[in-house]
């Protein structure tokens, strides 16, 4: 069964979420692939997984305003969250703000959002950055929006657990402070990963290939999740699943 690159990435993320120690995953704004993965993991896990998609109201039960995501995470009620970065380095520091010598930047991006907090309080942060290049994966980020590691005196229950790109899946070991290549996606090689990564990481002797999505997973994704994610990301759903937007927001008073 053929699949689109987005479907492959959704499958990789879904498998990361379908783990017994993850009971509630929250997905930030403008994250259609993580959002679809969260809904698919929920469906395939028999609705055991709670999913909150901050973008819009469709899969968002929060009723206490913009701070509820952060409060909820601070309470320990969110087990998994996704973060990205315009730069990510070998210590899992992430930079969402800009390149250059802050505050004299060469390029400026939106800003750090809630990363500086969520990275500390969500136990399983999945770094998701499809573009796998030396531009993104650098020796040292220019600006630390959120640090990958903290000293022993700092209260921190959260941090990076995995990194998913268009080339591979890595894990992160907070004890040694290093990424480890877990699998390379079909059609790509360890060399390609090494060539395109600007930081050092562990490479085991045998690197398996990332599992391709099963037919059952793809069927669930297309038939069940497509229409759901269309409520939040109509353009994405149209593009990937050829589904046109159904949902309208609820009527107000």
């Amino acid at each position, binding site marked *: 069964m053929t699949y689109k690159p987005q479907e492959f990435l959704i499958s990789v993320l879904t498998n990361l979420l379908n783990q017994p*120690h993850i*009971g509630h995953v929250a997905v930030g704004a403008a994250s259609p692939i993580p959002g679809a993965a969260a809904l698919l993991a929920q469906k395939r896990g028999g609705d*055991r997984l709670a999913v909150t998609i901050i973008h819009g109201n469709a899969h968002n039960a929060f009723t206490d305003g913009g701070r509820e995501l*952060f*409060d*909820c*995470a601070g309470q320990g009620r969110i*087990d998994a969250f996704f973060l990205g970065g315009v730069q990510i380095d070998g210590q899992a520091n992430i930079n969402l703000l800009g390149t250059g010598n802050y505050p004299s930047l060469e390029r400026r991006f939106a800003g750090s959002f809630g990363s500086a907090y969520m990275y500390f309080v969500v136990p399983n942060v999945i770094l998701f950055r499809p573009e796998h290049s030396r531009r993104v994966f650098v020796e040292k980020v220019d600006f630390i929006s959120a640090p990958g590691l903290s000293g022993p005196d700092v209260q921190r229950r959260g941090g990076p657990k995995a990194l998913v790109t268009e080339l591979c899946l890595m894990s992160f070991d907070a004890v040694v402070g290093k990424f480890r290549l877990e699998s390379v996606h079909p059609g790509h090689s360890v060399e390609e990963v090494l060539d395109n990564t600007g930081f050092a990481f562990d490479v085991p002797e045998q690197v398996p290939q990332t599992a391709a999505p099963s037919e059952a997973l793809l069927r669930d994704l297309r038939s069940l999740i497509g229409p759901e994610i269309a409520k939040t990301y109509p353009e994405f759903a149209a593009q990937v699943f050829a589904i046109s937007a159904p949902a309208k927001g609820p009527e107000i008073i």
Partner: protein
Amino acid sequence: MTAADQWFADVLPMPAKIRNLPELADLIPDGALLAVPPEYSFVPMALVHQLIRRRARRLRLLCVPLGGLAVDLLIGAGCVAEIEAAAVSLGENGPAPQFTRAALTGRVKIVDSTCPAIHTALQASEKGVPFMPLGGIIGSDIEAHRSDWRIVDDPLQQGNGPIILIPAIQPEFAIFHSPLADKNGNVWVGRRRELVTMAHAAKRTLVTAERICDEDLLDNEQTAAGTLPALYVSGLAEVKNGAKPLGLTGCYERDSAAITVYAHQASTDAGFADYLAPILAASPPASP
């Protein structure tokens, strides 16, 4: 218990969270720290009666921030080891007789507080921080007897002088009775938003509701605005008249006459026992 463990134990598919009243009360173990809403805010009297029937013991009550009939009954019935409150009374029906007696005899440990300190302690838990500052209070004998509160000199060093830091309180359970919940576990709280803070702060929230409806309260912007999402609700039971003899906004008024009777009876041990007898003898209200 990790977040994952809690979710594992707790975030079952929603329909499984709907229980009957005895099951709900059985979830609360002896010794638990229980946040209880004030007289004006959705007090779960039927659940309190059920806790008395199951002879709960050594409960620690956090009144948010005031205690009333529910607290007085639990004290009188011997369910309570400790109580923290800004005040306990029967409101317009006068002093809380069993609380008053327990305070004078020392039978129950009483931790005296002040309203905003209790709200603040819960907000600290809601935000997952170990403490929050609060103005005022310095020089009060409340503060003089709270070794857990801490006066620090202005940590911003801006010449603002000393300020009190209130440590977070994380109740093991928050309990309340709502006029309406839905079958997905969402619960209407309306403008009674101390219930939201209680639920956010507590590890688990158990709710009784007059009615459990089929329509999802979050599907409508208007009801969503006053709804505590199921995300925070660990157990839900449908119980008609679950706040009586106290009032429930929009459903029934406070039965002041009945509470006057209670105030009178509860002023003696024998009278209190008489009041308690039918509660102990009753079967819990059947679930529909």
